[in-house]
């Protein structure tokens, strides 16, 4: 009887250990740790048996195992500390993920994929919205997956370790005024993204699919782009220089806000020019931004697509214009506040007695 009971309890322990093993890495170290854990369980059972003066039954062994915890939970405690993306990389990961999902993927779907879908289903808004949302849903998962995978690889290979290790306290920027809130990491990421943005912008004229996707086979850029392309590239270059200067001269607290305001002004001028050009159409069909390729020029289906895409671009430009205007007002207000603060600090310093 006693042998049977002890065999039953041993079997239960073995089954429990097997369940824990399932969740543990199959390394020698972990298996060794598990063997030790198993020995602890057996000692606990033995101690209880000694206390009661009889072998434990299955229910009593089960209670001991239950007190130890769920096998997956135990494996979590016994196993090595693991994280897909560690705390060191996580802020950059979160920033990049937000950028990709909110500032790249969503606008691309709203302004490019959505209109193309709408044109493809011949103006059926319901179907177009469902198709676009479906594609956005799967696209978001793929984009998030790719970004996570890249950062997980960076985490494993410690590719960015040098960036965080190679620093010298004496080279740290001078103490900042409290109003400077832009972090080093944020500015660095801004710089990297703007470099990618410029590369993309330079490649777009040669590879139209990079902006139009499948529609590049039948759509072509209108002459307007030949006029505004160089200013746009110059703005993109300024977008790279600005964070670079902020990183190099963090003590220039006036620089980020002032340059942001100057950039917004230029952008506003550019947008005004583009919107004005649209309101003065040349004779014939209205294709201010994108025209149809010669091969499909007379197809009613493609004419409708071109019209929808042109309207979408116009709407997006108008939205950007509104956004830049609001941004400009906010930047002006913040700049004025900064100037007022600087003046008041200067006055305070002047009024303090010299010791």
């Amino acid at each position: 009887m006693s042998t049977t009971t002890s065999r039953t309890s041993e079997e239960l322990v073995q089954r429990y250990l097997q369940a824990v093993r399932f969740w543990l890495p199959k390394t020698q170290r972990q298996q060794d740790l598990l063997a030790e854990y198993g020995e602890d369980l057996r000692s606990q059972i033995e101690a209880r048996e000694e206390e009661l003066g009889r072998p434990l039954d299955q229910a009593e062994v089960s209670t001991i195992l239950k007190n130890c915890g769920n096998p997956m939970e135990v494996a979590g405690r016994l196993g090595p500390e693991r994280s897909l993306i560690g705390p060191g990389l996580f802020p950059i990961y979160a920033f990049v993920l937000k950028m990709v999902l909110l500032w790249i993927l969503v606008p691309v779907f709203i302004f490019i994929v959505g209109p193309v879908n709408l044109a493809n289903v011949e103006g059926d808004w319901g179907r177009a919205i469902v198709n676009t949302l479906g594609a956005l849903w799967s696209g978001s998962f793929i984009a998030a997956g790719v970004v996570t995978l890249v950062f997980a690889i960076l985490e494993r290979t410690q590719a960015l370790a040098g960036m965080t290790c190679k620093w010298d306290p004496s080279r740290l920027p001078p103490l900042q005024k409290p109003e400077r809130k832009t972090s080093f990491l944020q500015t660095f990421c801004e710089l990297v993204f703007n470099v990618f943005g410029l590369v993309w912008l330079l490649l777009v004229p040669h590879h139209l699919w990079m902006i139009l996707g499948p529609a590049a086979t039948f759509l072509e850029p209108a002459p307007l782009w030949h006029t505004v392309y160089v200013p746009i590239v110059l703005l993109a270059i300024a977008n790279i220089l600005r964070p670079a200067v902020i990183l190099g001269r963090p003590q220039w607290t006036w620089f980020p806000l002032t340059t942001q305001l100057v950039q917004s002004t230029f952008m506003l001028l550019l947008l005004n020019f583009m919107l004005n050009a649209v309101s003065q159409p040349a004779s014939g069909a209205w294709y201010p931004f994108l025209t149809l390729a010669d091969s499909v020029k007379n197809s009613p289906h493609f004419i409708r697509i071109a019209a929808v895409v042109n309207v979408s671009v116009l709407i997006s430009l108008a939205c950007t214009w509104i956004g830049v205007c609001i941004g400009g007002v906010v930047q002006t207000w913040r700049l004025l506040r900064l100037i007022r603060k600087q003046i008041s600090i200067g006055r305070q310093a002047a009024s303090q007695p010299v010791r």
Partner: protein
Amino acid sequence: MTNGTNNGAEVLENLKLELRRGCLIVAVLAQLRTEQYGYTLRKALADDGLTIDEGTLYPLLRRLETQGLLLSQWREEDKRNKRFYRLSPTGEQILEQLLIEWQSINASLGKILQEA
């Protein structure tokens, strides 16, 4: 109100855990001045008022062994294979320094609490 109480209890639990973490290492090292295996070590600590679960103890023992503070070996006892641990010569030195540090912290804390 209940949320605040729960939050307070959670904060207390976390702080107690943090406080215990460092003390547990000293306690484990001190217990292992005499050779023991996992279960008896855990029992000895519990008998002295420091309960520690298996999932915390065994990884801690491995870490201390990797750091060179403990020596271990698998040995058969009562027809069962058990892993026995004891303090290494480096571990003895480190424990001595840790105890000095512990006493110094304790004395400082005592003074601070008396002043308050």
